[in-house]
């Protein structure tokens, strides 16, 4: 078991440019079933052995794809997400960075009325180690096991997955949900999925300054948590009013501080690591308790 993606997931790629093709190749090496590419105007051709279609609907009809990975540049990315939702794909992962927030507001509003789960945008993607990788993360840093992992940041996800793997702690599913202000699968929703997943025995929740998703996730775990969790918040030393790379990572008007997030987790009985290197030790303790 796992959440959102597994060995039965059939992936199509929207945006078969340089990046799309490169990562399609890496995903196949990892074992992901990549069934189609979508490039308007290139339908009927093949790229690197992957059949290409003009529309998502045509690709789904021909291949039975049930998930999509989007590399379409920012001006067209929201449209690509909506096309995937229109084709009733159950999972859409959007890697694209820099999508206007007004586009994402519309996307969020439409998706709320569909059965499509969006991961991202501006994210590394999701992986169920040993089964399926939909994203750009280096697969070799992940390993199969009992730890469910959700993170708002990209590279930090690799860093922590690598630390877990080295400590012998494999992962059930890792969800890199993205650092933008408006995203498809916010931390509380991702935490709920992992909390309900039978393959997950412990959770690692990696947040950042900005917004109040971590506080809401802590509240959820306090009320409904079925398994132990460990948290980490990036940006504790960031000054207010400065955006730390991610559009969502900013402390403004007293909102979104690291202190508020750490307090919320501690009140929910969830230990908070002060450095990524502490996470494996805390997970081991949590699993023993």
């Amino acid at each position, binding site marked *: 078991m796992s959440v959102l993606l597994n060995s039965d997931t059939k992936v199509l790629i929207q945006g078969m440019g340089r990046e799309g093709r490169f990562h399609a190749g890496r995903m196949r090496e990892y074992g992901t079933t990549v069934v189609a590419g979508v490039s308007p105007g290139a339908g009927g051709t093949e790229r690197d052995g992957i059949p290409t279609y003009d529309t998502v609907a045509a690709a789904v009809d021909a291949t039975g794809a049930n998930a999509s990975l989007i590399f379409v540049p920012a001006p067209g990315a929201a449209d690509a997400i909506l096309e995937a939702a229109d084709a009733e794909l159950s999972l859409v992962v959007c890697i694209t960075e820099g999508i206007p927030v007004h586009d994402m507001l519309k996307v*969020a509003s439409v998706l709320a009325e569909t059965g499509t789960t969006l991961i991202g945008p501006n994210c590394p993607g999701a992986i169920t180690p040993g089964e399926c990788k939909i994203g750009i993360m280096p697969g070799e840093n992940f390993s199969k096991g009992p730890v469910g992992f959700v993170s708002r940041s*990209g590279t930090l996800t690799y860093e922590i997955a*690598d630390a877990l793997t080295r400590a012998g702690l494999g992962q059930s599913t890792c969800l890199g949900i993205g650092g933008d202000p408006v995203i498809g699968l916010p931390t509380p929703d991702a935490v709920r999925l992992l909390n309900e997943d039978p393959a997950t025995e412990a959770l690692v929740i990696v947040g950042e300054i900005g917004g109040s998703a971590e506080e809401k996730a802590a509240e959820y775990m306090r009320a409904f948590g079925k398994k132990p969790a460990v948290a980490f918040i990036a940006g504790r030393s*960031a000054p207010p009013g400065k955006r*730390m*790379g991610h559009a*969502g990572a900013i402390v*403004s008007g007293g909102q979104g501080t690291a202190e508020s997030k750490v307090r919320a987790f501690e009140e929910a009985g969830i230990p908070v690591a002060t*450095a990524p290197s502490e996470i494996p030790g805390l997970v081991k303790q949590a699993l023993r308790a």
Partner: protein
Amino acid sequence: MLVSATPVKLHEHQAKVVLARAGIPIPQGRVAVTPDEAASAAREIGGRVAVKAQVHLGGRGKAGGIKLADDPEGARAAARAILGMDIRGLTVEKVYVERAATVRSELYLGVTVDRDRRRPVVMLSTVGGMDIEEVAATHPDKIARGWPDPRLGLLPFEARRLCFEAGVPKERVAAVAQVAERLYGVFVTTDASLLEINPLFVQEDGSVIAGDAKLDVDDNALFRQIELAGWKEVLASERLEERARELGFSYVQLDGDVGIIGNGAGLVMSTLDAVGNAGGRAANFLDVGGGAKAAVVKAALEIVLSNARVRSVLINIFGGITRGDEVARGIVDVIKDRPPRVPLVIRLSGTEAEAGRRILEGQPLVSRETMDEAAAEAVRLARHSSQGAPPPSTPAPTPAGAP
């Protein structure tokens, strides 16, 4: 809840032009860059005017950046006092001269993004003129909020409901609701991340008029906001950050002495925290982004080193798309060009880290295996060089690669 990225901030006079185009009433006004221009603007407008500093800062009124004048000579004197004034580090280069409103009461009206609800949020309060965050903290019940569906916009009934919930007198509701609907329209057409009229004046004759205006544009949308993008002003204090943005990475200057370069916003934030944990302070945030090539790393290192406060530099790369060998090549290029004036500490992990470490072998820098160790070393070296000590001999700049 409130989103404020690094948007393009418009001046009041620019934001008011945008509001006026949408049919929102604004006082007649003109920009002036000299006291003479202010006097002639006041003459043209006639009667009592407000002379207002145009700076990208809140609280300019308290700082003396807004003065009322009864006639052109008064406006000239006010402009003379305000132009060139320093408001929290910013020099006032222009003033906006506008007809003074006849104020009966003041409202707050604003639109921004509520990231938790993933909806736009329209806020209206009868406590106008104050910072809305202050009102939210002291009188939360005084702010009415509505979350329109972005596909439909702010509907007339939603705008009316906001007015009634905020306690707007019933004879003013139609006028205020109309401004709210139009303001929401501007929020959408300008790709704003924040749009405020604060205060929104109710005048003695019952008409409503925008007293001030604040418009921040989402920088991700500048590709389709050509006119507003052209209004962007780069402050002297933000020039390095702007240059970094042009090079494709994100840089934020901070006030410590350990320069930081990393890949990925979360990893860089954690690196800042690791420096904090080791008792030091970061001089900057710099994310080279994904897939950085040698030339980008070289440019990043040059930007970090151009900050005179930097006493050591910590480079923390976890390779995914970014390759360790590319990063290493960039560092070697910089060292070859001009040996850095401060010690470098590097931590390479992930894709091609091994190859990167081989490239760095024999270079004058310190290599550490983990983020924590590298941060501790960078903090230690920064202390040494800030005390004016020569570069430390122990541990010797290790042959990079040996952890």
